């Protein structure tokens, strides 16, 4: 079913590598004084998200900016502490990791950054930047250079030796993003989160970087999360897609199914918004409102209801739960059998 076609999945290995259970990341806005007067508001960047990722699977996290997809990625790597819920990686709760165990986790789960120009310290040579994870993992100094060159070859940076003593500003965006990717892969992790890895790059070099990402993932059998706002990119890279909106999961299922027949009205709008390279084909995007609502003050019930063209009386009253519909899960009252409405 899911994951079919792109590459074979070992049946034994297809138990979940990462389980996310009702994870929340709430920010309290305003200081202690406004809290005392009861005037602080809470921004729910991630609000009760649950999903599982099987070993070897690539999942796309899709959504517009501010929907919590980047926060979700940061939570997975413990760059942010969850305010509720649990993240379990290979049987170990990530949320409770400390010191040595956390360090071991760091070697197994990695992040590819969105902005390569910001992700490498401008004062560090490429050699120094790539040495840092090796040093932390206790790899002896004599072995490091070989590992660095190997990692740079893996991301298809030609003649890696000549880059070692260069500084980030001497590299192009595409080269630098490959270095960032090499740094993420140098410790041979099991799990990689890629946070919009090509959004800061020129369109002309995007395809190259994306192909490297896909190849490396397949060759190393990586489990990957690919965060993006671009459905076309997610479709190119991932067999499964999770659509997020205002900190909640709206739809979760095989990418091809979602693209061919989006169920959730929000997903429909996203699919309709993808430009079609045929000028004569009638193209009519779903009429949803322009901007997402203020995250400090989301709508009651279903968070999407104020932009939803199909909203009905139940939407403001009840928060829709994620329900299994065919091959996927959808959080929308339209697909709730108990009302009989379709």
């Amino acid at each position, binding site marked *: 079913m899911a994951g079919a076609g792109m590459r074979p999945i070992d049946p034994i290995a297809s138990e979940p590598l990462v389980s996310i259970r009702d994870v929340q990341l709430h920010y309290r806005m305003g200081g202690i004084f406004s809290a005392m007067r009861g005037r602080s508001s809470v921004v729910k960047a991630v609000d009760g998200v649950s999903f599982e990722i099987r070993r070897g699977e690539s999942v796309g996290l899709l959504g517009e900016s501010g929907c919590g997809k980047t926060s979700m990625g*940061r939570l997975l790597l413990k760059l942010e502490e969850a305010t509720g819920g649990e993240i379990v990686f290979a049987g170990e709760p990530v949320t409770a990791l400390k010191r040595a165990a956390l*360090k071991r986790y*760091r070697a197994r789960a990695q992040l590819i*950054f969105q902005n390569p120009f910001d992700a490498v*310290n401008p004062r560090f040579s490429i050699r120094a930047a790539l040495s840092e*994870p090796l040093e*932390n993992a206790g790899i002896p100094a004599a072995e490091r250079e070989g590992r660095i060159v190997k990692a740079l070859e893996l991301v298809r940076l030609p003649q890696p030796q000549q880059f*070692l*003593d260069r500084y980030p500003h001497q590299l192009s965006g595409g080269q630098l993003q490959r270095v960032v990717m090499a*740094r993420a892969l140098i410790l041979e992790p099991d799990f990689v989160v890629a946070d919009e890895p090509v959004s800061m790059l020129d369109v002309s070099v995007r395809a190259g970087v994306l192909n490297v990402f896909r190849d490396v993932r397949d060759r190393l059998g990586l489990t990957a999360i690919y965060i993006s706002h671009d459905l076309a990119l997610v479709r190119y890279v991932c067999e499964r897609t999770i659509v997020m909106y205002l900190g909640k999961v709206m739809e979760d299922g095989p990418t091809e199914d979602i693209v061919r027949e989006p169920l959730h009205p929000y997903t429909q709008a996203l699919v309709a918004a993808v430009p079609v390279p045929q000028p004569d084909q009638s193209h009519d995007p779903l009429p949803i409102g322009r901007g997402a609502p203020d995250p400090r003050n989301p709508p009651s019930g279903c968070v999407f209801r104020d932009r939803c063209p199909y909203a009905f009386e139940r939407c403001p009253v009840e928060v829709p739960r994620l329900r299994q519909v065919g091959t996927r899960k959808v959080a929308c009252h339209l697909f709730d059998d108990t009302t009989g409405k379709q």
Partner: protein
Amino acid sequence: MPELAIARSGLPTRLFRSLRLPLNDRFAVFGLLIYLVFVVTALFADQIAPYDPTEILYTEDYDLAADMRPGQEGFILGTTSLGRDVFSQLVYGTRSALLIGVTAAFMVALIGSLVGLVSGYFGGWTDAVLMRLADIAFGIPFLPFVIVLAAFLEPSIWNVVLAMALVLWRDTARVIRSQVLTLRSRGYVDAARVAGSSDAKIILRHIAPNILPLSFLYGSIAIGWAILTEASISFLGFGDPESISWGYMLQDAFASQALAKQAYYWFVPPGLCIILVVSAGFFITRGYENILFPKLGR
């Protein structure tokens, strides 16, 4: 590999480079030259000064050599009412001024940088507690505090250093904290964390090098402040009577009614020296400012 040799140049060179002296700014170079002159004077005070600054001198006729005019009897800048050599006092005053200036600047830059780094990087309660302490330090009037301190402790030039260390870290800490807050949110800091680097390592490797010029900026401001404060304290009579400083000279001249005697040679030189050192610090500060905030222009 030749590239390696370039990257790993000698420690003194690297230390010098890490200071990032603002050598492309004419004012800053002027300031550095003034500092150089004063530092050399302070180091070789024993060789330069013809007399002990506290020694009471006599003329060849065994008269007290009091209120000599410059040049008279071979005294370059004349003598005080007690028969002490003004030039020797000026030379030795350089020593105590620089000693106070440098130690106070070091303390201010060190404490301020540490507090700023810890406060900005860790945030939360640590930040709240340290910044409320900074608020208290901001509430302390500086000069009265030094006077009270001098009253409680024995009069000593170190009172000024201690007071500066206790109070003036506040400005440095605030500014460095804000800088650390922006640095902390940079991608490469997250990258280092994901790479498994400890907090200490991240602070030392990725954050501290970026705030070093700011520390120097506040250090060079503190040098001028310390020298001015010491002069004020000595002039008010709370200074150390044992050590000769420019402030002490001014106080001595004031108490001996040098102005009425028109003994300009007595109080103008120490005043000029204070102005020169403090403005040299200001020029260097401007140079650092240019490095730190190139967009400000001038």
